[in-house]
């Protein structure tokens, strides 16, 4: 291939290169690499296909993507940590703006808009969770929970973390890998009929080395943990901290954990305006009270508001920057770096769009739709719409044990009917046998749900 000038690399123009090399005083670009020993230099060509022009690239990529079947084509009942919700077009417009898309670590002046948008996101989520401090978002719920329990350990000076056994298994893996070897983890049993935490077991395990108890509400299995106040009481009596993970889209109808005693709240922003993107839409948030002992333990950036020399004008900056690993390296609080700022901004847009009424409404619609789905499923012989007896939000366990079919078989047949069935729980939760976690949100129409019901009926009567 002759060296055509690539559209992405303007200085491939030979005349320009010559001029620049003259300034540098070098004969060739390779001369600038003299610091790299020859034996380290790559001799062979990289085995990567030759360059494609823009149009060829587009056909190539679109050709590959066309092998996918998306949730726009099939009706989707998968959730389990990544959820399909209504996304207002304004969210996409804002996060696709060239300015936000390509900005990075600018200063408070030339990036004033970015700082303000993130400060507003913090403020909006703060209202939702009813707490005074919220961080610039981290990677995902798993990371947020990991950091939350580490913060709790630093605050209490203790090393043991109790996890509800109903915490999402993949999330526990993240938490445990992130916490070890410094922290020890222990699981608290749950009631297999309601999902609720076993308070006797909790009490037994609440020893004086327990830094924090972590559970999720609504839980991974969809049920609402209604013992919030009771758990909180036990935890506080032990001078431990209560860390609760939430799905923020539930907070228009379910009490925010701060209201039943949580010290640290965390969760995932993905439901608030992010497309699923094969899991590229996750973003974790952490919220606490505005107390120094909490604020100083955040590893994340926290943007604060500052007056400028002009009256009535606001600027924004990093609060207490010197706690971070940017400032202190290994002595800082954990580490900080590129996380998921754009999703923070987007979640802010989402909350501003929905407002108080919208958040209440979306929560209620989700509960109604999912209850309807569970109710209808229960009317199918051999199927139990909701395996657990407790109230649930958005997700619920569907018990297929009496159908004689495995979840895998049912899901394969649902696929033929253009349905993505719920997540197979048979590996993660043996106690439920052949059960699946179904997710129903505000995007499901009655027709979608009825189509599922009808399809399962057909599958079972074959």
């Amino acid at each position, binding site marked *: 291939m002759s060296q055509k000038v690539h559209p992405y690399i*303007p*200085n491939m123009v030979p005349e*320009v*290169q010559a*001029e620049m*090399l003259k*300034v540098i005083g070098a004969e060739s670009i390779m001369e600038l*690499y003299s610091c*790299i020993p020859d034996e380290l230099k790559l001799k062979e060509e*990289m*085995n990567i*296909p030759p*360059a*494609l022009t823009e149009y060829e690239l587009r056909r190539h990529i679109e050709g590959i*993507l066309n*092998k996918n079947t*998306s949730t726009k084509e099939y009706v989707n009942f998968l959730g389990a940590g*990544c959820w399909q919700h209504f996304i207002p077009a*304004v969210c996409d417009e804002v996060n696709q703006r060239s*300015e936000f*898309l*390509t*900005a*990075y*670590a600018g*200063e408070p002046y030339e990036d004033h808009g970015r700082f*303000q948008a993130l400060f507003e996101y913090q*403020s909006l989520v*703060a*209202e939702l969770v*009813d707490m005074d*401090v919220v961080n610039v978002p981290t*990677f995902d719920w798993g990371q947020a929970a990991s950091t939350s329990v580490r913060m709790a350990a630093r605050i209490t000076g203790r090393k043991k973390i109790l996890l509800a056994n109903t915490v999402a298994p993949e999330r526990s893996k*993240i938490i445990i890998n992130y916490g070890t*070897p410094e922290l020890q983890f222990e699981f608290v049993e749950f009631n297999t009929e309601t999902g609720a935490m076993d308070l006797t077991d909790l009490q037994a395990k609440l020893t004086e080395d327990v830094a924090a108890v972590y559970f999720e509400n609504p839980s991974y299995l969809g049920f609402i943990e209604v013992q919030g106040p009771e758990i909180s009481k036990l935890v506080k009596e032990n001078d431990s901290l209560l860390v609760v993970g939430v799905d923020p889209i539930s907070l228009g*109808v379910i*009490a925010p954990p701060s209201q039943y005693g949580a010290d640290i709240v965390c969760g995932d922003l993905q439901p608030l305006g992010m497309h699923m*993107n094969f*899991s590229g839409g996750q973003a974790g948030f952490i919220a606490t009270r*505005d107390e120094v002992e909490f604020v100083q333990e955040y590893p994340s950036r926290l943007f604060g508001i500052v*007056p*400028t020399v002009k009256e009535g004008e606001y600027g924004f900056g*990093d609060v207490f920057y010197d706690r971070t690993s940017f*400032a202190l390296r290994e002595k800082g609080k954990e*580490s900080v770096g*590129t*996380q998921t*700022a754009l*999703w923070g*901004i987007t979640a802010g847009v989402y909350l501003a*769009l*929905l*407002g*108080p009424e*919208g958040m209440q409404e979306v929560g*209620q*619609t989700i509960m*109604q739709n999912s209850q*309807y789905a569970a109710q209808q499923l229960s009317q199918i012989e051999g199927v139990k719409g909701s395996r657990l007896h407790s109230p649930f939000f958005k997700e619920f366990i569907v018990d297929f044990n009496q159908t004689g079919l495995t979840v895998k078989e049912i899901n394969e047949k649902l696929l033929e009917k253009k349905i*993505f069935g719920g997540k197979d729980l048979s590996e993660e939760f043996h106690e439920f046998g052949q059960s699946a976690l179904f997710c129903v949100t505000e995007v499901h129409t009655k027709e979608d749900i009825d189509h599922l019901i009808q399809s399962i009926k057909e599958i079972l009567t074959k």
Partner: protein
Amino acid sequence: WNEPIVFELHQPGEKGVELPPVNEQIVSAVGDGVSVIPDTMKRNEKPNLPEIGQARILRHYVRLSQETLGSDFNVEIGQGTCTMKYIPKINELLIRDPKMMELHPLQDEGTVQGMLEIFHNLDLCMREISGMDYFSFQPSSGTQALFTMASIVRKYHETRGEGDQRDEIITTIFSHPSQAATAAVKGYKIITLHPDENGFPDIEKLKAAVSERTAGFVVANPEDTGIFNPKIKEFTDIVHEAGGLCFYDQANANGLLGITRAKEAGFDMCFFNLHKTFAAPHMCGGPATGALGVIAELRDYLPAPIVEHQDGKYSLQYDLKHSIGKVRSFHGVAQTVLRSYAWIRALGPDGLKEVAKIAVLNNNYMYHKVLAIRGASAPYVKGHRLEQVRYSWEQMANETGVTTEDVTRRMTDFGLHYWTSHHPYIVPQPFTLEPTESYSKEDLDEYIHALEQISKEAYENPEIVKTAPHNSTIHKMDEQDFLDDPEKWCITWRSYLKKAKTEC
């Protein structure tokens, strides 16, 4: 614009968007849906969010966007170490394909063959670029990749029964602070090597540092100074002999593509920032991807799942014997994976090499020009810089009192970014420039000219620089301790209403 805080736009009764309504028949069947929640767990007051019409919200955010200086808008050289490069618009179109945006990560593998193919294809490309044998795209930033590598180091030694004994990780002071920080999170003691007088990592210090307690060695090369350590293979040999693993922070790889690789330098693992070197956008700070590559021996330690390809079928392999578990939910940030794959395919192997060469050319041109500016210098060895340089205004600060922070603010008046650099400020009055391959000579000259102008001002009329910005979105912020005094900091609007407003 002097755009208010979003809460100030509140007008009770206005509405930003309408939600899909609940079906009436569903209401008949299940009622209001929320009565099942026990009173103690019900939300009693609606969240105190603002109520604003759609047009006003949009106006608010698009105005804020215009007050943000993305790399599409300026000669983005001043954020050294961040490898700000051209973000091809075609890639942004491609990731908006519903066949990408609307995929659930748990869909049946048969329905996401295209997505898995893209993961696998990128894996193959990254193998060629690095010499590693397997890649995971789960880590969602450089920091998380570093943490993942530290986790693998620990798991590796634990598997071999040396978990407790090997409790030290060695790094260098000019590597990114996250190297030390993430290893510390994973419970390691950190040994930090300082450079020799020329700015090279000091091999004698390394020899003194390694022992049977050495778990690993993590380093960037070139470091944030832009200086490449030519003895890197000797370094990794020393660590290997001591029984440690070597892992490579390739955040500064932009000058190296197709030139030199992790494998030949003796590394066991490495990672690349897809959002830097591989042209995924920074998005105000993520989401991102730290693509993590390991040698075959370490495959089974990777976080699960990884994508495999057999008989024309792509699948997710969850069964990795020594897997550290997971570091991020599901599969990572699929959009950046797609973007970087598209970027690599748009360049081909020759183009990738040109990226490296022009990045180095641009940087050396810049280096020669900046050194000619009054008051500027580049500490350590003369020359030998690859894709970036950490400079110093020490002389200017001594002679005029104008600091590198002043220059930061003044640069915004020119519509340009300028970043001082990471802590720690070993180089006094530092600034770090990384011109990448994306900028033309004319662009570089524009940036250099702004620096020259500011230097001139500093020597002739320093007040202009010290009181900057003069022409930015906002005025200079009040320099009291609004950000460091717990009584004054306000991390949310509700907090501001409680603290600051009451004072008025």
